[in-house]
């Protein structure tokens, strides 16, 4: 049990007038220190809701949470608000997608970064300022002693994201959750930010959860990958296995619908038919069944029985009714040649 973060059967349900939105419905995963877990999925698959649940940011909302989230020896779903507050920003921190709306426009960047230090440790304002300037320099912001007194709007997009990272890292958190940290950035800046996160992880040994929809980013930075669909994990594997032997029709769909940068694979892309499911009305059986092209190979009725997340190979789980051997055959015959 050396896993630093253990999530067990996490459910996040939102009651609404139209019915219960099952944003996350029975999710389990582990994360060791110094490792990166990539969570991939389309919008509405539950990836951001999961990260907010870990950070305890559903508290005070109407969300109904169940399951367990163990960080070290504490169940984050059970701890008091007081304890949670002492963990948040110190032991675990989050980088949000849009730094402009995640930062307060009325306070200087320096003030906002220092807050985390002043709240969690007994330091003087002067010492905090020194640390903040050091941290800004660490994340590659030029002239940090001038920048510290500027406001978020005076920073460019890439620099704002760096400042966000500096803010999250100011207390050397052991768990860092990054929710689409590079989606709003240009590729050249994205490359800088990913390098930075890798360097900082090597230095501080943090565990990172990287939430993204970009399989390229996942391939680049993750050790393990969790593919989510309709609030559930459909595939959970080490990054090499996921890309070399993807084992779920939805993962296949993601891979074949994405054009490649480094080669021309086919004249036409093969999209996943249909649209992502509504979380109020998740299709019965396998949530992916209305869009799945391989149902005929399944061992039982996909639209009736919910498949379990089961081990297909060592350390490689997926949630599908098609027998493992058939899936391997299908992948080799009809998917791999198109990648």
């Amino acid at each position, binding site marked *: 049990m050396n896993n630093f973060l253990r999530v067990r059967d996490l459910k996040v349900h939102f009651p609404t007038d139209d019915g219960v939105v099952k944003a996350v419905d029975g999710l389990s995963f582990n994360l060791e220190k110094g490792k990166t877990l990539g969570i991939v999925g389309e919008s509405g698959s539950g990836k951001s809701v999961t990260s907010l649940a870990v950070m305890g940011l559903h508290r005070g909302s109407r969300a109904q949470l169940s399951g367990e989230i163990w960080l070290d020896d504490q169940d984050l779903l059970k701890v008091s608000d007081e304890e949670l507050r002492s963990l948040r920003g110190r032991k675990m921190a989050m980088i949000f997608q849009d730094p402009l709306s995640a930062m307060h426009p009325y306070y200087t960047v320096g003030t906002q970064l220092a807050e985390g230090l002043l709240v969690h440790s007994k330091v003087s304002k002067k010492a905090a300022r020194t640390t903040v300037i050091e941290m800004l320099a660490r994340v590659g912001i030029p002239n940090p002693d001038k920048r510290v007194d500027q406001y978020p709007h005076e920073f460019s997009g890439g620099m704002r994201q760096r400042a966000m990272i500096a803010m999250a890292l100011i207390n050397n958190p052991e768990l860092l959750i990054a929710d689409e940290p590079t989606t709003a950035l240009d*590729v050249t800046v994205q490359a*800088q930010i990913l390098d930075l996160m890798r360097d900082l992880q090597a230095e501080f040994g943090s565990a990172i959860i990287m939430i993204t929809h970009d399989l390229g980013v996942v391939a680049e930075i*993750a050790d393990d990958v969790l593919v989510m669909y309709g609030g559930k994990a459909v595939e959970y594997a080490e990054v090499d296995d996921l890309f070399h032997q993807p084992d779920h029709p939805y993962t296949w769909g*993601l891979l074949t619908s994405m054009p490649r940068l480094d080669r021309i694979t086919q004249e036409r892309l093969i*999209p996943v038919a249909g649209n992502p499911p509504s979380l109020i009305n998740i299709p019965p059986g396998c949530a992916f069944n209305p869009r799945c092209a391989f149902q005929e190979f399944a061992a039982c009725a996909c639209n009736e029985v919910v498949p379990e997340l089961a081990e297909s190979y060592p350390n490689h789980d997926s949630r599908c009714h098609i027998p493992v051997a058939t899936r391997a055959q299908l992948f080799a015959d009809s998917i791999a040649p198109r990648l």
Partner: protein
Amino acid sequence: MSLLQVTDLQKYFPTYSQKLLRKEGAPVKAVDGLSLKLDPGETLGLVGESGCGKSTAGRTILRLLDPTGGKIEFEGKDITHAKGDELRRLRRDVQMVFQDPYGSLNPRHPVGAIIAAPFEIQGVTPAGGVKKAVQDLMARVGLNPEHYNRYPHEFSGGQRQRIGVARAIALKPKLVVCDEPVSALDVSIQAQVINLLEDIQEEENLAYVFIAHDLSVVRHISDRVMVMYLGRTMEVTDRDTLYERPMHPYTQALLSAVPVPEPRRDRERILLTGDLPSPQNPPSGCVFRTRCPKAEERCVVEIPLPIEIEPGHTVACHFPAARVVL
């Protein structure tokens, strides 16, 4: 004859001081000396980082913005300063698909009215009536024609983008500028819209100017690709040459920065430092020199002119050299 020929296009935005709209300060040179040619049925990809002027270029070509200088010819006719009726007629032949499938459709109009708007504005009555034409268009882009009376909010992002495509092709244009048409969509939906655009192109012999920051999508859809940086063209060539042996250091850096979905693949990364300079105060000489790993003294003083290094491959760099980066 080319369908579209743009010569030395400039679009400057004036900047004003705080005091009562007094004109002052250097203009923002959003597009500065852009030249391109487009044949019927061809797709030109326009790529670059945000702020490089690719959207402004697209809008200026369509005359949604007035050019500051240069010349735009469509089917041999100078449309640089077309206005009034002439401009309205031009819109039958050139159309646009916008990035934001939420912002580009009027929420108070039913879809039928949105797609019928081009007919109404142009005073065109299609054979069989407007309603039938609209329903045919809806079927064509993969929407249910019975949803004619629904409002945009009742559709998903991908479906809304289909509505935008239907509106753009209603008048059978010859050129459509697509400004980031798929970047707001999920991966699995992206492919549906890309395939739709390709199908329509094939059926109608449409030409596209395809503006995008996603270099993988551009590789898939384009015949030729133009790379822009700070309002200027860095490199133009056919897509295979551009991706397989780019010659401009910026193209090389851009391509090397894109993560590919293949773990543990060691690729040499050309890391660019810093951010895009301000287009209001671009660097002297070559605009890319402040971030260029190859920059030398000459780049500071002399603007590199676009030179056709091999047939159909134009590069604006003092030190062009082919390099495999993917």
